């Protein structure tokens, strides 16, 4: 069972501000979903290799040549705040 305190910790990790009502509802829903997921423990997986990816790819490389990429103004065009070709965020150090 996840407690509301654990939920708070996970929300911090996920960078999500949750209202008290959201926290309570999510705790209930996540506990229901996680108890459903516990059925996976019925399956013995001793010695089974995990699959991260269905393709048997290793180290896909390309030639080290210059290609056309976005211009700086295009890359910045969607940013909420910019200045002199930089992304601007709220002050970090006082």
């Amino acid at each position, binding site marked *: 069972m996840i407690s509301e305190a654990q939920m708070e910790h996970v929300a911090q990790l996920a960078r999500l501000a949750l209202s008290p009502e959201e926290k309570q509802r999510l705790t209930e829903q996540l506990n*229901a979903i996680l108890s459903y997921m516990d059925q996976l423990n019925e399956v013995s997986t001793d010695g089974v290799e995990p699959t991260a990816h269905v393709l048997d790819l290793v180290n896909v490389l390309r030639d080290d040549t210059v290609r056309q990429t976005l211009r700086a103004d295009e890359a910045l065009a969607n940013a909420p705040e910019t200045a002199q070709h930089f992304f601007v965020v709220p002050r970090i150090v006082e």
Partner: protein
Amino acid sequence: MELAGLTIHALHAKLVSHEITATALTEAVLARLAAVEERVHAYITVTPELARQQAAAADEAFARGEICSPLQGIPLAIKDNICTKGIRTTCASRILANFVPPYDATVMQRLKAAGAVCVGKANMDEFAMGSSTENSAFGPARNPWGDLGYVPGGSSGGPAAAVAADACIAALGSDTGGSIRLPAALTGVVGLKPTYGRVSRFGLVAFASSLDQIGPLTKDVRDAAILMQAIAGHDIYDSTSGDVAVPDYSQVLERDIRGMRLGVPREYFVAGMDQEVEGAVRTGIETIRTLGAELVDVSLPHTRYAVATYYILANAEASSNLARYDGVRYGVRTTQAANLLDMYMRTRAEGFGAEVKRRIMLGTYALSTGYYDAYYKKAQQLRTLFRQDFHQAFTQCDALLAPVSPTAAFRLGERLEDPLQMYLADVFTIPVNLAGLPAISIPCGLTRQTLPIGLQMIAPPFREATLLQIAAAFEAATDFHTRKPPLLVDC
């Protein structure tokens, strides 16, 4: 029939013979779209100006005698998680409500090169998370069938509803756990989820990167083959796209299926399945047998663990992929931030909807210290067992026949309060994504409430041609693909 109701290949014949122009066709589709959109809400953004420009360019090419592809001048809908240069791409999320991509997805570049026309960006569940298209920040799409009170399935509910309502000729969707096949089944259209790696994901906004694939939703199987031909193939911008030759899909469509061995997985016919759905699927399978295929009883023993496995893996990947929405480089930023951390927390709280938050939380939890082995690693091991199940089944047959969903469309709101019940709609589509296989949904019946039923076919990796061959043979022997939603006939 009205032009908007026709297939790509029927319209291509008319365009090539100068019976119609791409401009007239585009106007017909835009008019139909305007007539039904209020009731169906298949689109987030409609792009009439772009469509008219592209149609005019296609007409100039036709006038010069240049025909570069069967898609030239054909109006398409594009799911709103596929990046379109200069056209808002929202993923049906508030957090991307103002996002205008500075580049085209590879599939869009290919469609443009083929001369296709884009009529708009189609509605979906936010970040493709959902099975009903009710999780759209711009309001739900509706199923054109029944009494218009049913969901179209999800997450590609907008593309599917647009095709079914003739508000486009064909569409592109994406499928992470069934998001093309489920809405295709529930709206009575053809939906093809390609092999993982068959179609470039470059420019598809990532949900679960090891599962996502782009694919077509169309009015018949030949149209699915045409769209696949245009979008399939290796792409240097997606290192997971397979460097595997793309066959000529049109070559298999009239080939008979005599002697083909087709497996029927016994775990896909479960207690609690809707009787009408099971009946239609079994009748469809029998039709395929009478066309000369041999049916084989096969077992996929881990099927019942699919939903649990998928929702751990997909949400873990999603929690990582969605970390990029932090209000810095794109998207909507909160106006209330006290400092940087507060800006992140509030931006994400304000920008994401309830289902996306739920999945981010689940995924973050499954990846967090102390729970990683119990959930994430365990699910990855199950994923290996799913691959082995299919591998074993394909030693006995060329492809599998199965239902797409245990039920036909459900009512709007019916499953919103119970996320687990919603997730269970995907039980027969998820295993295909876990194993990276291609699968198609084609219409095989209607319920008494005039709700469509889908038949699913699943093939080994990169055998889309096998699916198209069986589906085309079934389609030639039936007329389900020609039915239209009765309530929208006179619009």
